[in-house]
């Protein structure tokens, strides 16, 4: 289906190109060479494919438009010359703004459709209707939703992984700032709080329908993927928070953060305070709990060690007192 549409568009661009080439260059005093002509046509074709207007049917109209783009161009003659040199003949292969790629893979097309579909989620919820509406804004038939075997699950999983990559970019940027000395390293608790808050704020535009999305993620065939996204999210956050542990702490830290994230997400879904202030307070409290627990665990361990030492000392003293320690 997508290939058919691309073929139609290619046909349109070829027709446009032919009509330009057939216009006599000698009649146009301003057009100095054939390459300029093709370049002008290419610019016009780019505009045309972006706005999806029907191609000019008569050569005279073509001629006028050709003049117009060319005269507009005369104002900045240096730039076109430079541009010409860098992309001489390939610009007429440009299709719908794909920066020089010859074609896009199915995966890229799916990503584009799902991105467009996100706009319609507030209206249609996380469903095939939203995907169909998104496909239609890209001038594809709504039957292209047949590509998505998992239906709404695909949309939700795409959104989740998109948000996770955004968060990773933000955290990497912050990390770079710290390494360059332009920012202070945050305390772990603050870092975790900010990271979780940033990530959960990405749900705000879709918060009305988020319970539906959560339930879709809990469907049995989606659970492996949603768990994978959750684990990469939590691993990324801890990595940027500075965790480099290689023992059981690796597991306990991630388990704790997963618990915090999931419970905060649930709180957020039914929060009605302004700007979700209740949710952020809840998050603060949970993180404080974990920090307290870690501190308590450490205290318990050192107390235990001290007690063992005390007991061993007491046993030794007893042995001395009863004379068991003497060498006979």
């Amino acid at each position, binding site marked *: 289906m997508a290939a058919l549409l691309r073929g139609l568009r290619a046909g349109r661009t070829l027709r446009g190109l032919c009509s330009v080439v057939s216009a006599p260059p000698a009649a146009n005093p301003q057009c100095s060479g054939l390459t300029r002509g093709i370049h002008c046509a290419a610019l016009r074709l780019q505009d045309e494919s972006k706005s999806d207007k029907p191609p000019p049917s008569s050569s005279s109209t073509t001629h006028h438009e050709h003049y117009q783009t060319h005269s507009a161009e005369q104002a900045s003659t240096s730039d076109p010359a430079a541009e010409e040199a860098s992309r001489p003949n390939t610009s007429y292969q440009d299709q719908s703004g794909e920066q020089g*790629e010859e074609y896009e893979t199915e995966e890229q097309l799916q990503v584009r459709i799902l991105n467009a579909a996100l706009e319609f989620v507030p209206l249609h919820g996380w469903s095939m209707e939203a995907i169909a509406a998104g496909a239609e804004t890209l001038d594809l038939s709504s039957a292209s939703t047949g590509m998505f075997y998992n239906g709404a699950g695909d949309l939700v999983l795409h959104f989740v992984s998109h948000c996770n990559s955004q968060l990773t*970019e933000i955290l990497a940027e912050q990390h770079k700032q710290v390494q360059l000395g332009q920012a202070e390293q945050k305390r772990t608790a603050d870092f975790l709080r900010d990271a979780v808050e940033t990530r959960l704020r990405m749900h705000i535009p879709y918060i009305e329908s988020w319970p539906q999305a959560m339930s879709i993620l809990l469907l049995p065939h989606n659970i492996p993927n949603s768990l994978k996204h959750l684990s990469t999210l939590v*691993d990324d956050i801890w990595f940027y928070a500075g965790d*480099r542990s290689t023992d059981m702490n690796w*597991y306990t830290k991630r388990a704790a953060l997963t618990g915090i994230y999931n419970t905060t997400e649930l709180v957020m879904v039914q929060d009605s305070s302004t700007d979700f202030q209740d949710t952020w307070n809840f998050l603060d409290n949970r993180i404080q709990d974990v920090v307290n627990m870690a501190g308590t665990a450490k205290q318990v361990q050192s107390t235990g060690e001290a007690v063992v030492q005390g007991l061993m000392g007491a046993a030794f003293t007893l042995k001395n007192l009863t004379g068991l320690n003497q060498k006979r």
Partner: protein
Amino acid sequence: MSNCIGPVMIRQCLKCRGPLQLSSRAYSVLPPPRDSEEKEMLDRMLRVDHAGEYGANRIYAGQMAVLGRSRTGPLIQEMWDQEKKHLEKFNEILAENRVRPTALLPLWNIAGFVLGASSALLGKEGAMACTVAVEESISEHYNSQIRALMEKDPERYTELLQVSNKEFRDDEMEHHDTGLEHDAESIPGYWLLKKRYTTGCKAAIYVSQRV
């Protein structure tokens, strides 16, 4: 197509969380992984190596707990110190490459200590027999890793091969020979003991690769 990077490819590159801009060291023992398959293979190798060194550390700790004050104490202490260095190196590599440590670490903690202590209770020869068996399994394991990496792409993994595998494997072989020198074979039932230890090690390696 190679000269244009669309947003999808950038995202995919970000998903492949190699140590690109995150490592502050100029060099890294591992090359940044090309794809998720390679990352998984390297992850598995490093995970089991780390678990192995951790276990060996605990085995020597067990042996020292029993034989620490005997004549063989200093010898075991020396071998233990070398294992500690190996473990430190692997901790570094794991942290740098964001490899998940095996979830069975507490199990190896206890099992290793019990193994070391129980073998030391059989006397000096018992401890040496345990050392010989364990070091033999570990050397065998490192050798098969070296073979696998050389088969794939020796140049890509030279650092890893040199530092972790060849150096450490040589150390382990040295421990093995030390064990043999110190009358490991004189213990009655040596072959049976050795068989049991090596089978246990193989099972541990297999499980640690996956869990």
